């Protein structure tokens, strides 16, 4: 591939794709969250024993108190949209290369019973974009085929 500005020398540009095979451990905490999605269709958050705050996604240590967050509670599956965004460019899935249909809606939904700021981040199924607003009640819809990934959640649906 080459670029040539009129009257100037050719400036060569090299196109490359970087590809590195990786395998990520999920560990006992993130691993439990994903296992619960897959096996029990439940959104489980861990909870700090000191401040009572939920963490979603669950992490090993409470970010505020620096103690292990060892308690677990089920949140949702219903909640309310906190913030949302309507995306108009096609964003390819890095694993499959497939692009989503645009526009699509991404949102944070604070699930019922959540303590602290720990909203769940996922797609919103919104055939009518004019209905999307902050505070809208939504419900988690799980995928039929589940494999212990965030794809086990299909999307949020709007509670009519």
């Amino acid at each position, binding site marked *: 591939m080459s670029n040539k500005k009129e009257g100037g020398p050719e400036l060569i540009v090299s196109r490359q794709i970087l590809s*590195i095979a990786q395998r990520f*451990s999920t560990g006992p905490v993130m691993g439990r969250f994903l296992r619960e999605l897959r096996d029990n269709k439940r959104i489980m958050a861990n909870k700090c024993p000191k401040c009572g705050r939920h963490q979603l996604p669950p992490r090993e240590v409470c970010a505020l108190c620096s103690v292990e967050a060892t308690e677990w509670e089920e949140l949702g599956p219903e909640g309310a949209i906190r913030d949302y965004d309507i995306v108009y460019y096609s964003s390819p899935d890095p694993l499959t290369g497939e692009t989503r249909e645009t526009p699509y809606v991404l949102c944070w939904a604070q699930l019922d019973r959540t303590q602290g700021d720990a909203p769940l981040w996922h797609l919103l199924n919104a055939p009518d974009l004019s209905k999307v607003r902050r505070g809208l009640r939504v419900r988690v819809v799980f995928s039929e085929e589940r494999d212990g990934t965030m794809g086990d959640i299909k999307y949020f649906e709007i509670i009519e």
Partner: protein
Amino acid sequence: MAKHRGAGGRVAICAVAQTKFERDKWQVRFQGMLWEVVEKVLRQTGLQFGAGGIEAAVTVSDDVFDARTISDGAITDVVGAHHQSEEKVAADGAQGVYYAAATILSNHHDIVLLAGHCKESQSASRNQITHLAFDPFYTRPVGLDYVAAAALQAQAYMARTGVTEAQLADVVVRSRKWARENPVAQETAAVTREQALAAPMLAAPIRQSFMYPVSDGAIAMILASEERAAELTDRPVWITGLGNCYDSFFLGERDLAGNFSLERAAKKAYEMAGVTHPTDAFEVVEIADQYAHQQPQYAEGLALCPARQGAKWLADGGPEKQHVNRSGGMLAGNPLILGGMARVAEAVIQLRGEAGSRQVPGAKRALAHGATGPAGQLQTVVVLEN
């Protein structure tokens, strides 16, 4: 903000914790692995995060090994940097020691948490990762990675000094022998010279046995100003010398058989520490020998023996006499980016008298070395005293 202490202030390492180094810590995320050691140094010192306690963290990690950009963002929960200060060193952890000490000497903070992690097992091939350290136009297309670069260095070094393959095998044999005395070491299975020489050839003359193994692990330390150190430990280990130096990025511009950058890094550290005769200045020496030939080569660069005399140094039992790598060294297994940090950790353990069956009795002064980049492009030298 720390009290102004001006030039001449001292920095102590007040606590150290390491995970066991293992080939594949598949059970934990790197965050969980790091928390294991952070929690230990908090307990050792009684410190908490926040005002009056740990107000700053310096972390050591590699974005490409972590497979995410600015990968320190993923560990703020664990290093107390959620709503606090954190800075990342994307080089060997000995550079993290340097940075943390500078943070204290420059009066920014009195107490710093230094935390490093790497899971080399996360990638299918370390060579794919280190290949990316090279430029995309000139060297990558020809297939350079760190093993190939180290092999060029080994060829040049062995041709100049006459160090033999059998001598490199003996370096490995000795590493395994001492590693068995180190509870956190990874490669502890005894190996004979013949077995080491029969290992598969990776890039001549580097055999699999001559290279550090795939390794996962984490290390944490607490560094403090002289004013605060006494609150945290009754056995502070003082950093008395620091030096580093880069060599050229392009291997062809370097003298690969020599030690241009290491000699300069050592000179700076020795001058700072007042070391005039390095051959007998240290009771403990820890060299980041990612590859077996680097142990004699870097011993030359550290002036533990005369330049070009690495073969004689090995033949005369230099490593044993000068107490080099009683931890097992890097050949016994540390992630690439923690090689020098693990050397500093071992130096601290030795100077605190906590090294058990590998303890050098009465150790007063230690030398720790780390290297970053292909064929040791960046060299870091740390002198520590109790």
